[in-house]
């Protein structure tokens, strides 16, 4: 039901979302908000898969499944990531990414 929207417009949206996510990942100092950035990026990718499925290969649903699995993995990743955040918080009482630089050079 999206015949009237050219694919390039959808791609603009997803790409924009993707880079907004990247921007978030690269600027936010709180680890959790960095994770939000990543989720946005993954979300953009998901839309991409779905859109390509629908626009270019309407007879397939490979993109659909890919998106499905990405969602699952994103969840798992988020879970582990958050576990690690909390562990860090227990150690240094902060989840500021700029303070996570004990190891450098």
């Amino acid at each position, binding site marked *: 039901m999206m015949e009237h929207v050219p694919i390039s417009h959808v791609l603009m949206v997803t790409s924009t979302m993707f880079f907004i996510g990247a921007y978030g990942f*690269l600027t936010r100092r709180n680890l959790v908000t*960095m994770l939000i950035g990543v989720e946005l990026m993954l979300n953009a990718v998901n839309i991409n898969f779905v859109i390509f499925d629908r626009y270019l290969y309407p007879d397939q649903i490979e993109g659909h499944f890919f998106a499905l699995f990405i969602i699952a993995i994103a969840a798992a990743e988020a879970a582990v990531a958050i576990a690690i955040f909390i562990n860090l918080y227990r150690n240094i009482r902060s989840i500021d990414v*700029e303070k996570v*630089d004990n190891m*450098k*050079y």
Partner: protein
Amino acid sequence: MSYSVTIFILILPLTVFVLNGLLSNKLSHRLAGWLATGSMGIATVLAWLTAYNYFFQSSSYEKLIPFQITWLRFTETLQIDMGILLDPISVMMLVVITTVSLMVFLYSMGYMQGEKGFIRYFSFLSLFSFSMLGLVVATNLFQLYMFWELVGVSSYLLIGYYYDKPEAVAAAKKAFIVTRFADFGFLVGILLLSYYTGTFDFTKITNPENAAIAGMTGISFMGLSVLTLALTLIFMGGAGKSAMFPLHIWLPDAMEGPTPVSALIHAATMVVAGVFLVARMFPVFSFHAPEALDAVAFIGAFTLLFAAIIACTQTDIKRILAFSTMSQIGYMMLALGVSGYGSEGLGFTASMFHLFTHAFFKALLFLGAGSIIHALHKNDIREMGNLRKHQPITHIVFLIACLAIAGIPPFAGFFSKDEILSAAFASNPIYFGIAALAAGLTAFYMFRLYFLVFWGNERTYEHSPHESPVLMLIPMIVLAIGSIFTGFIPFGNFVSSDSQPLQAHLNVTVAIISVMMAILGITVAWIFYKKESLLPEKISNMSGALYHTVVRKFYIDEIYLFITRKIIFNLISRPIAWFDRHIIDAFMDFTATATNWVSKEIKGLQSGQLQHYGYIFLSGVILIVLVMIFTNT
């Protein structure tokens, strides 16, 4: 008798060298000494026998090669052989070397008695004799060069015999390095010559019909024919060994060695190797490179006068003799330089003749000087006087030698010098003038020495001087006999440039002039030095700076010192060493430091900030995409 026995003339001293060298802690002094002297005795007998056979048992003096092996092969044509070449000059040299060596060996038995390095001394001395003998019998240039080097090193070892004396060490070093420098020229000369002729063999090179040699005159290099260049370079080697100006500076210093060594090496034998070399190559010089021969004559004449002048002012007995040696070798070189070939070869014969007689009387002079030094333990003639009382026999033989060198008939020197003067006279009046003047100077400085040492006032000596032991006197007496009588040998019959007998007649005009000069010189010396007088001092004061220049040997040493110390050491070696450490090596180190520096500078890349990592990640991706898009389209 077969000539092949000549090989033993070489092997005997070599064996002694090895034995004495290896067993220097095991042998007793006496045994080692007699071993050396005995072997040298046998060698001498063999040499005389060979000479007898060669000169009197065969009609023509052909070049004989009784022994030859290949030692090293360079190319198909070029190879070094080791062999023995007998021809008049080499046989003559064999006789001279073995005889003088034997005398010196005997003399040393007395002179060196009780020295700690006695065995080492004989070992080195034997090495020298071996090398010198090998040099004169060399069949080819390269063999000659090898023994030439060996002679040099034995000279080095013997000059440095008193190795705890810094002067001796320095002198030895200087002698070796200066001659090495000359040998550099020699070697290049050999290489040049051999490249064009394709051989080192004397028999081929000196063959006047050798086409390759003639061809070399056609190839020119910087305005000179290659052959002239090669021969000049070879002569450079000879000049170094024979202490010709300007490569003479090592010889006076070489007197730091034991006196018998000076007698053997630095008077009678080694220093005439240069003369021998030119004589050996004489046909080539004479036929194809007269320019090179001119150089020989010029250098010879110059050195002749130059050394004679310096000799007049020296006070060290051995140094006087050393300058005298240089001067006499100058005579020999001059004679060779002015000589022609074949029937015009008077100069050649004269040169060889003088070499022969000079060996006797100069060796005698040195042995005499040694006898004096042995008695007094000092070298300065100003501290000597009236020794004729204490050392009568030494006095007599020394006088004989002085007369011989001064050219007073009928002593040996007169005849040989007369021939040289004749040859010079025939060739170029200037050379003759120089030679005659030098004859007078020779007489002067020798008798100056003689009068100062044996006459004059009695000095106070630490312990009373005594006559030398018999072992030292016998060789002196033998040599004295030689100095008296060798002049009468009809030398031209045996040794000549083309191996044909050459009749040399006494040139009366020349003879009178030379004898007059000699007598003049003796008279002046007599006036100046017979009694203590102030005259010499006055004259030297009058000439002032000139005199000082002469005393300081025309500052040649200083010039050398300047070149080596200041220029080579300070301006070349040190800068190179510095350059190597601080530029080249520093560059290598710099690559390391630079790497480290870069490593340090870029460490900020790894900031520990996760977001920086992500930033670089993303920009990396974008950059690669950009680059790839641009390169792919």
